């Protein structure tokens, strides 16, 4: 088991070489981790080591390198299982990321949908948790029901009982909103869904980078996330599914690896988890993701969360210094994600002028157009904080915003 050390921000920052550079002549302040997080050197080293020493295709079993690559790859699966406390390694399926994960589930579940069946999604979903369900609905005649949010950006919890009925088959919601930062009370929501016989699909893309998730405690049917937001490489993500749910799901793509036996008379599929993993998988990416999770395992998570919340509180305290600054998303329970607008400025103006000062934020609709429509805004500027950010980063952001705001008056 890994040893947990105290939260030492200087030592953490020394693990992220990329943060130590100038952009437009100023030290980089990276506040776009919700779009993609930076990777510690340990992740880069693990990928490098894999390619230098162990690289081969997996599950072929004819030589030593192949055995090593397979061991590395499968131990990454065990690592993810442990990280989210899944009951079995069979319940961990590799995908390209959250988007492919939801497509895999929506595609599979659509086989059991009938016309008039209902799928509940919330208004705060990322397009990745909307469009695959719309496509499933289009194919099957099922109907999307939208779960509303309040002004603060929280789900209207009292609506759920009205939304759930005998036609409801699936409830797909995000654990944490990528725009609002809202942490949804997933455990309670899943409980209500389950009581109504509804399959729950949880988008954990923005949750896993900020706090520990226990899928058995949540009791959800499916839980998905991307490695690249969890300080791991791009190109790999995870579907967690309860074993019985995954058994019932048809394969997603056909090809090598996912079969047991192929003949022109008929093909039988491999067992879990391989049934869903057609073709040569993202091996080095799995190795990198494992290194990222191990890295997180060496950090005191409670201290890390306290550090992140401290950054957010500091940011909140400075909002009033920027004339015309308005927050979008003021939920009670939030991860450190701050979406905002400044009167008279377009989000893209803010992004451009912060970039000039070496500060990276995201601007636009954040792949959540229905949410933008709900707030009647063209987009927002979004600063997202990770554990490697500092109070100095928060102060640079606000000093930068004050400067920009003055340029426009």
């Amino acid at each position, binding site marked *: 088991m890994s040893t947990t050390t105290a939260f030492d921000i200087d030592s953490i920052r020394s693990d992220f070489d990329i943060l130590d550079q100038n952009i437009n002549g100023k030290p980089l302040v990276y506040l776009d981790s919700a779009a993609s997080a930076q990777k510690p050197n340990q992740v880069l080293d693990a990928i490098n080591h894999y390619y230098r020493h162990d690289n081969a295709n997996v599950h072929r079993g004819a030589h030593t390198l192949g055995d090593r690559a397979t061991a590395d790859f499968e131990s990454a699966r065990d690592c993810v299982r442990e990280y989210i406390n899944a009951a079995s390694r069979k319940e961990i399926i590799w995908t390209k990321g959250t988007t492919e994960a939801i497509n895999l589930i929506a595609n599979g579940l659509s086989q059991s949908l009938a016309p008039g069946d209902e799928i509940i999604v919330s208004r705060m979903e990322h397009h990745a948790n909307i469009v695959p369900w719309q496509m499933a609905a289009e194919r099957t005649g099922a109907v999307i029901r939208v779960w509303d949010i309040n002004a603060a950006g929280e789900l209207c919890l009292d609506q759920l009982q009205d939304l759930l009925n005998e036609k409801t088959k699936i409830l797909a919601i995000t654990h944490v909103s990528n725009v609002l930062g809202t942490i949804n009370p997933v455990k309670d929501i899943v409980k209500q869904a389950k009581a109504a016989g509804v399959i729950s699909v949880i988008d954990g893309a923005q949750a896993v980078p900020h706090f520990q998730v226990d899928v058995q405690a949540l009791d959800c049917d499916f839980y998905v996330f991307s490695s690249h937001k969890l300080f791991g490489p791009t190109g790999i993500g995870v579907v967690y599914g309860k074993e019985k749910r995954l058994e019932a799901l048809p394969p997603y793509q056909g090809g090598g690896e996912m079969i047991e036996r192929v003949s022109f008379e008929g093909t039988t599929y491999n067992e879990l988890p391989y049934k869903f993993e057609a073709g040569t998988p993202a091996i080095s990416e799995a190795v990198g993701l494992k290194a990222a999770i191990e890295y997180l395992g060496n950090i005191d998570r409670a201290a890390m969360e306290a550090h992140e919340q401290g950054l957010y509180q500091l940011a909140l305290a400075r909002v009033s210094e920027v004339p015309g600054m308005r927050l979008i998303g003021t939920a009670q329970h939030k991860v450190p994600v701050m979406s905002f607008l400044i009167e008279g*400025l377009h989000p*893209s103006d803010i992004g*451009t002028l912060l970039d000039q000062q070496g500060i990276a934020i995201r*601007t636009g609709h954040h792949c959540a157009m229905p949410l933008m429509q709900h707030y009647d805004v063209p987009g927002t500027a979004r600063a997202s904080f990770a554990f490697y950010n500092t109070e100095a980063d928060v102060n640079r952001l606000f000093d930068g915003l004050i*400067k920009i705001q003055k*340029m426009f008056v």
Partner: protein
Amino acid sequence: MSLPALNEFKASPFGTETTVADILETFEFLDDWEERYSYIIDLGKSLPAFPESEKQEKNYVHGCQSQVWLIHQVDPDDGKIYLMIDSDAIIVKGLAAVVLTILNAKTSAEIMATDIESLFDKLDLIRHISATRGNGLRAMIELIKAIAAEN
């Protein structure tokens, strides 16, 4: 609904009174990003008013994070193309003013012969028309070239 009269298009100073040389000269005196972008913001604010009635889908420039609209008229006498552009983002408007200074009130042949990239490079604004920026400057320029190609 009809476009503004040619006269209204011709009232724009960009590419007529305000020349590329003016902008290049002004830029030379601005030594940091704040001054440069304050100037771009001022340029944006000084764009002639764009008719609200023309802010419709057919005049919408796609591929932008901000909303951008573009309309044009051709002077039948000399074949010069006159452009009007608007955006809800001021910096995009300011950069549009730079684009207009380079391309407005020119003939099709003149537009086709203009090396806009190298001018943006000289202004140290090249990043704004690179393919990776979703701000629509590039789409705006492509559209003007397409208009030139048709006329």
